[in-house]
C-alpha cells in the first residue's frame, strides 16, 4: 500500500488553507499543529510528575510528620467499573479518528455524528469518574485523608479536567460545523482537537495500568 499521493496543481491548493493563504514552514507542519504537539509534550511532563508522585506515595499513605488515615486508597478501587470506563474512553478515540477522516473527505454529516459520539462517550467517562470519586468519599477517602489519596485525586482529577476541556472543544466544533464554519479546507482544526483527545486517551492508558492494575 502506497503512502504517497500526488495531487494535481490546483488554484485551491495555493489559495486556501482556511485563511486564504498557505503558510510554508521549515518543518512542513503547520504552526497550529506544531503548537498542539509542543503543548502535548509539556502535558506529558505534567502527567509524568503526577504519576510519579502517586507511585511514590501510594504505599506510604502518611508523609513524615503528618497524621491521617493509614489505609491506602488502592484498597477501595473498583477495577471492573474503571475497566468499563477505560473501554468507553478507548472507543471515544476511535470515534474521534472517524470524525477526522469524515471531514477530510468533506462528509460534514458524519463529522457531526462522530464528534457527537466522541463527546457523548467522553461525558460517560466523566460521569463514571464523578461516581467513582463519590464512592471513594463514602468509603472515607477524601482529598485530604492522606497523601496517597491526595496524589490519586490530583492525578485523576487533572485527567478529568483535560477530558472536560476536550468535550467542550468537541461541542464547539459541532456548533461551528452546524454554522458551516468548518469547510473541508479547515479540516486540520478537527485534526488538532483530535490530537488532544487521543493524547488524553493515551494518558488514561498509562494511568489505568500503572495506578489501577499494577498491584
Amino acid at each position, binding site marked *: *500500500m*502506497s*503512502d*504517497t*499521493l500526488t*495531487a*494535481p496543481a*490546483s488554484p*485551491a491548493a495555493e489559495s486556501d*488553507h482556511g485563511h486564504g493563504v*498557505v503558510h510554508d514552514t521549515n*518543518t*512542513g*507542519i503547520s504552526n497550529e499543529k506544531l503548537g498542539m*504537539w509542543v503543548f*502535548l*509534550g509539556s502535558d*506529558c511532563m505534567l502527567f*509524568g*510528575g503526577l504519576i*510519579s508522585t502517586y*507511585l*511514590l506515595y501510594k*504505599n*506510604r499513605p*502518611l508523609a*513524615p*510528620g*503528618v497524621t491521617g488515615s493509614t489505609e491506602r486508597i488502592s484498597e477501595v478501587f473498583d*477495577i*471492573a467499573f474503571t475497566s468499563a470506563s*477505560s*473501554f468507553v474512553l*478507548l*472507543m471515544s*478515540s*476511535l470515534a*474521534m*479518528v472517524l470524525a*477526522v477522516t469524515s471531514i*477530510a*473527505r*468533506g*462528509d*460534514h*454529516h458524519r463529522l457531526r455524528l462522530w464528534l457527537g459520539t466522541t463527546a457523548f462517550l467522553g461525558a460517560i467517562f466523566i460521569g463514571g469518574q464523578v461516581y467513582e470519586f463519590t464512592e471513594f468519599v463514602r468509603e472515607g477517602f477524601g482529598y485530604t485523608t492522606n497523601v496517597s489519596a491526595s496524589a490519586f485525586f490530583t492525578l485523576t482529577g487533572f485527567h478529568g479536567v483535560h477530558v472536560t476541556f476536550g468535550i467542550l472543544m468537541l461541542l464547539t466544533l459541532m456548533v461551528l460545523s452546524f454554522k*458551516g464554519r468548518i469547510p473541508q479546507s479547515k*479540516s*486540520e482544526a478537527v*485534526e488538532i482537537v*483530535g490530537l488532544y483527545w*487521543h*493524547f488524553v486517551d*493515551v494518558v488514561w*492508558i*498509562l494511568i*489505568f*495500568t500503572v495506578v489501577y*492494575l*499494577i498491584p
Partner: protein
Amino acid sequence: MSTPSPDPAASGTETLPSSPFSEHDTLTAAEAATLEADPGLNRMVHHADMIYIKVGAVLAVLTAIEIALPELLDNGKIYGPLLIALMLIKFVLVAGFFMHLRFEAKVLSGFFYGGAVLAVIVYVAVLSAMVFWKGSGNPEFDNPPPAQPAVTVPEVIPGG
C-alpha cells in the same frame, strides 16, 4: 446540513495508487488539493476507516486481556511486566494510528517518542533515588519514613 459531495466527473478526479480500499480511491481535485496542503492528513485519509476500526478492536481486546490477566496467570511475578508490555502496545497503537504519527513527518515522531522516553528515564531516576537508595542521607524517603512528631497547627485567635 450536510454538504453534498462534488460530482467527480464535473470537478476532475484523481486515482490513488494501489490502495486496497477502492471506495475511497477517487478524490476530487478540490479534495486532493486540501489533502496536498497537509501531508500527514493526506497519508492518514489514504487509509480507510476499516483500518481504524481494526485498531480499535485490537485495543479493546488488549484491555480485556489486561483485566483478565490475574485470572489467567498463576505466576504473579510476570503480571507487572506483562501489564507494562500491553500498556506500551496500546500506547504505540493510539499514537501511531489514531494520532497518525506513522503517517506524519519524522520530526513529530522523534519529538513525541523521544520526549516520552526521556520523561520516563528522568522520572524513574528520581523515583529510584527516593525509593531504593535508602540510607543515602535522605531518611524521609525511606520506606517507611522515620517517625516524627505530628505537626500541630497553632490556634488562630481572630483579632488577636
